[in-house]
Each structure stands twice: as structure tokens, then as C-alpha cells.
């Protein structure tokens, strides 16, 4: 056999094998084997220590499972041995980027059981601080989003502008991350002098930051290619997994707990809009969050103009005993629906506290959402679902 014949023969044979493989979608010679990929616990895309075990077939995920528990602190058990005022310093640490927002539903639940309502002034200031913690939280998310896709610039903007907001929170409460400022019946303190004017200036900066992120990320072609049509979660799936917050609104459900339930807070005293998106993909989730940050700055601006005068604490006894009963209060936190089911037995501390955190439910959809995606999309889908590890593990 001549050299040409042998080459031709090989080529024909290879062409035959290739055509057969293409027809029957079988790899005859290059049979692939499944592989298990471990992401985390220490990984930049995990916002803490979430470990993801993914079973791959080539580049595709066959099966993925988040493994939680690297930061379980047992707050539900700890809350049972603490007094009501002491619990706020615990729940502060659940979602550590928006700490003040964690305190509010617990305090509201305790106030509901006691039949106390905070004075109008403290309701107003609570709402302002709540929205500031949302802005601080989500602005970091928007910056971090770029890093997940290799864009380094937005994160510097985010850290710079979040610092302004943290300074405001520190100015009013004394703590940058863990204010522990909410009290049953009101707030610890009134606002300091000059805080209102300073906050208005910062809200202008934050709106500019949102515009910058809009230009840098959301208008970016690479960003859109990585996010559009990726990780689509339909409305029905989102509801039955209990997704909440921007993740639910990005799937087309028009539901915001700030608007759709009556709480003794001041959201209904401002004019703002609930944004939804029909697509349900990664892009929609991030886009809704961006719009929400803009709305939050508007809420803060309007509420700053209308703070009523009066006391900041209702009359409550110094030793707080909460009457017997059960109460459920949830609020629209930066990450989604955060609620506390508080059972009281008329003692100094709660009998049982069930903490319903948003990220736990938001993350439980991950095995569903990650099935069949490509490996680089794991990172973007997780980033767009937006979880904080402390909020999953509690």
C-alpha cells in the first residue's frame, strides 16, 4: 500500500467515524467521562463560604448541589436563651451587608405582640435607614457583578460609593456594619445634626453611580451575552421555590412587601415604583436590582423632606416582657423576603424564633437552575441570584 492510499484510507475512515458520531450523537473514539467539579468553599463567586459540587458532562452541568453549613451559627437556638433586646444584635449578623434591615422585622414582630407602635418620627427614620442599608447592600452587588465576569472597574466605583452610605449609617447609628440601633418601641437615638443635608448629597452621588453602572455593565455587549437568556427561572418555578425580592420580580411577579402589606413603616408616604421584568433570566434579576437602587434613593430623598417631629421612643417598660402569642412579620429586605416567626410565652425572651431568610429559599432553586448550563454560567447565575452566606446558614 502506498503512502497516499494509506493516508486516504485513514482520512476516509476518520470521516466515516465522524459522520457516524454526528448522526448518532455518540462519541465513538472520544468517549467522555463524567467529572465532578468542586467550586468553593473559598471561591470569589461564593460571597462567603458556599461550596458547590457540580457533576459535569464535558462543559455541561448534569447535576449541581450547593453544600451549605460552613457558616452555620445557630441563631434560632441562641435566640431562645436571649432577651428580646439582645436578639437584635444577633440577627444583625444574618445579612451582614444590610444589617439594619434584619433588625426591623424582628422588632416589628415583638412590637406587634406587645401592642406597641413606634412613634411616627422613628417609623420614618427606620424606613430611611432601611433603604440606606438596601442601597449599601445592592451597590456592592452591582459592583461585584462585574468582577464575576472579569470586569474589574465597577467594583472600585461600588466600594467608593458604598463607603458614603456606610458613613451615613455610622453617623446616625455609630456602627458601619452592625448598627444595633432599633429598639422595641422606637430607635436608640435621634438623627445627628447636618445628617439630612449630607444624606441628600450622597443620594445624588448614588444616582450617578447607578448611571455609571448602567453604562459600564448593563450596556456592555459581553455582559449582555453572558447574562441574557441564561439561567431563566419561570414564574411558576420561582413561586414554588419561594424566591423573593428582585429574583421574583424579575420573573414577572409584581409583588413587593413594602407596598403590598400594611406595616408601621413609612414606605407608603413616598412615591415610588415597583420594577418587574418579564424575562426571568440573569440579566433581568440584575436589572431589577439596579432599578430598585434608584427607587431607594428616591424614597430616601422624599422621606427626608417629610420627617415628622415628635418623640423617637414610645413608652415601653425598661424590662421588656412580651405577652403570650405568635406573630409573623416579614419585610422586603435587600435580598428578598426576610421574616421572623416569633412565639412568645410571656417571658423575657422568645420561646421560639423561626428566621425565614431570603437567601435560603433563593439558593434552594440553584440545583434546578444550574442543571444543563455551561460551567462559566454557574458563576453568573449564582451571582445574579445574589446570596449572602450568613443569610443562608443563619
Amino acid at each position, binding site marked *: 500500500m502506498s503512502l497516499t492510499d494509506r493516508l486516504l484510507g485513514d482520512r476516509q475512515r476518520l470521516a466515516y467515524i465522524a459522520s457516524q458520531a454526528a448522526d448518532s450523537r455518540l462519541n465513538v473514539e472520544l468517549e467522555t467521562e463524567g467529572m465532578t467539579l468542586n467550586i468553593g468553599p473559598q471561591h470569589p463567586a461564593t460571597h462567603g463560604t458556599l461550596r458547590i459540587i457540580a457533576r459535569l458532562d464535558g462543559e455541561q452541568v448534569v447535576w449541581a448541589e450547593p453544600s451549605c453549613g460552613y457558616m452555620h451559627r445557630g441563631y434560632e437556638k441562641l435566640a431562645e436563651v436571649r432577651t428580646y433586646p439582645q436578639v437584635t444584635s444577633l440577627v444583625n449578623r444574618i445579612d451582614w451587608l444590610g444589617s439594619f434591615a434584619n433588625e426591623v422585622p424582628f422588632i416589628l414582630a415583638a412590637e406587634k405582640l406587645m401592642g406597641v407602635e413606634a412613634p411616627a418620627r422613628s417609623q420614618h427614620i427606620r424606613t430611611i435607614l432601611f433603604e440606606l442599608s438596601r442601597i449599601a447592600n445592592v451597590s456592592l452587588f452591582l459592583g461585584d457583578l462585574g468582577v464575576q465576569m472579569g470586569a474589574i472597574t465597577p467594583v472600585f466605583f461600588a466600594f467608593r460609593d458604598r463607603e458614603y452610605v456606610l458613613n451615613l449609617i455610622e453617623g446616625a447609628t455609630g456602627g458601619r456594619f452592625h448598627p444595633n440601633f432599633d429598639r422595641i418601641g422606637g430607635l436608640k437615638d435621634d438623627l445627628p445634626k447636618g445628617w439630612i443635608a449630607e444624606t441628600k448629597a450622597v443620594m445624588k452621588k448614588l444616582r450617578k453611580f447607578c448611571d455609571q453602572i448602567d453604562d459600564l455593565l448593563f450596556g456592555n455587549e459581553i455582559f449582555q451575552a453572558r447574562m441574557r437568556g441564561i439561567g431563566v427561572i419561570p414564574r411558576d418555578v420561582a413561586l414554588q421555590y419561594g424566591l423573593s425580592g428582585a429574583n421574583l420580580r424579575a420573573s414577572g411577579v409584581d409583588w413587593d412587601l413594602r407596598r403590598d402589606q400594611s406595616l408601621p413603616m413609612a414606605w407608603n408616604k413616598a412615591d415610588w415604583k415597583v420594577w418587574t421584568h418579564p424575562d426571568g433570566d440573569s440579566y433581568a434579576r440584575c436589572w431589577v436590582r439596579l432599578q430598585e437602587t434608584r427607587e431607594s434613593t428616591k424614597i430616601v430623598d422624599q422621606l427626608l423632606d417629610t420627617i415628622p417631629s415628635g418623640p423617637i421612643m414610645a413608652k415601653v417598660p425598661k424590662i421588656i416582657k412580651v405577652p403570650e402569642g405568635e406573630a*409573623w412579620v416579614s419585610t422586603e429586605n435587600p435580598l428578598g423576603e426576610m421574616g421572623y416567626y416569633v412565639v412568645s410565652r410571656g417571658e423575657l425572651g422568645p420561646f421560639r424564633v423561626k428566621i425565614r431568610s431570603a437567601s435560603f429559599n433563593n439558593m434552594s432553586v440553584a440545583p434546578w437552575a444550574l442543571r444543563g448550563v455551561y460551567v462559566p454560567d454557574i458563576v453568573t447565575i449564582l451571582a445574579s441570584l445574589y446570596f449572602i452566606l450568613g443569610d443562608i446558614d443563619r
Partner: protein
Amino acid sequence: MPALLPNEKENPLSSAPEVITDVARESLLAEITAALGDRLAASHLRPADDLWLRVHTDAWKSSIRTLRDTLGFHYFCFLSAIDWMPSPFGRGEDDPTEPTPVRDTTIRSGYAGGATRMQVFVRIVNPVTHIGVTIKVDVDDAKPVLESLHDVYAGANWHERETHEMFGINFDGHPDLRNMYLPMDFEGHPLRKDFPLLARMIKPWPGIVDVEPLPGGGVDESADEA
């Protein structure tokens, strides 16, 4: 309730309760009673606040499925359990050098009643009307098994895993009851009331100081009891 000015004398805790009617929840309760029939064991309504139901243990899954399909409760909020037995260790503030005081550990259920020590409760919400209900179910103490809800609400999967490891309640038909947080060889169920909080057993808790009245605080004990 209006905010009290500092010079007002009345105690907010003793003001006369307003009569509130909650048409939405009352009509919802009537619809639920009609839909569930015998499966509903008890209900409790707090006007303008919340609605509690208790269903019979053997009708747990079918009741939840009926509520989802006929009354539109499509949003799964959470699932967890309560151990109604008061802790024999109190709040873990006993002096370890003294003998342990005897405590009343009589089981007393909450809203919508119940007959067992353990109760599982789930909260589901109608995403159109935004009204939610909390549904409780008794779990047999000797054989804590309940039907799994994971094929009614897919989100119940993780919540049942968490409830299983924290309370030791088994969910029949659950695909994967591995521990969520704790190591697989962990012994005991931490959120049961008879599981001691070991940190408090080893060292007395200094936080007890916080709940004592401050000297010169001007609040006497009789006012606090009100």
C-alpha cells in the same frame, strides 16, 4: 394606635382594644373551611394580622395540595417545626455549682391548638391577594413521620432537610434527607428543647446583668409587670 407624646399618661399596653373586622381573611377562612372539610382540625384568626390553621396529620399533604390548587396559594414561604415543651434547662442561666432547679415542662400548644409536643408548620401565600396562612400539623412524638411536601412545593425540599436535622422529624417520600448544616455523624437534634446549649452549660452567662433594672432608672417593678 397613635404615637404617645412624652407628657401623656396612659399606658399603651393597657389601652382599650379596637374592634377590627377583617373581611378578606374571614371570607378566606370560610372558603378554606369549605375546601378542606373534615381535614381541618382547628383555625385561629387574628383580624388584620394573620390566619392560622391546623390540619389532621394524615391529611397533611392532601390539604396543602388542595389549598394550592383551589385557593391559589402558590408561593411557598417556609416550613419549620416547633417543640412546645418548655426547656428543662430554662434559658441556660443556672449556676453550674448549684443543683439544677426543677422546671415546669408542661406542653402547651399555641394558636390553633394541638395535642403533641412537636408541630410542623408551613407558611404559604397567595401571590395575587398577598394573604398568607400558617398551617400547623401535629407530629406523633413516638414516631415523628410526616408526608413530604417536596412534590407540592419544590422549595420544601431544603426546608424539610433542615427540619429533619434540627428536630428529628422524618419526611416520608423525601428524596434526600442528608444534613444541611451539621456533620452527618452529629448526634441529637439541636432545636429540640431538651438539647442543651452547651456553651451555656459550661460557663454561666454574664448577660443576665443586662435585664436587671438600672440603679435610679425610675421604673419600679410593679410598673414593669403591667
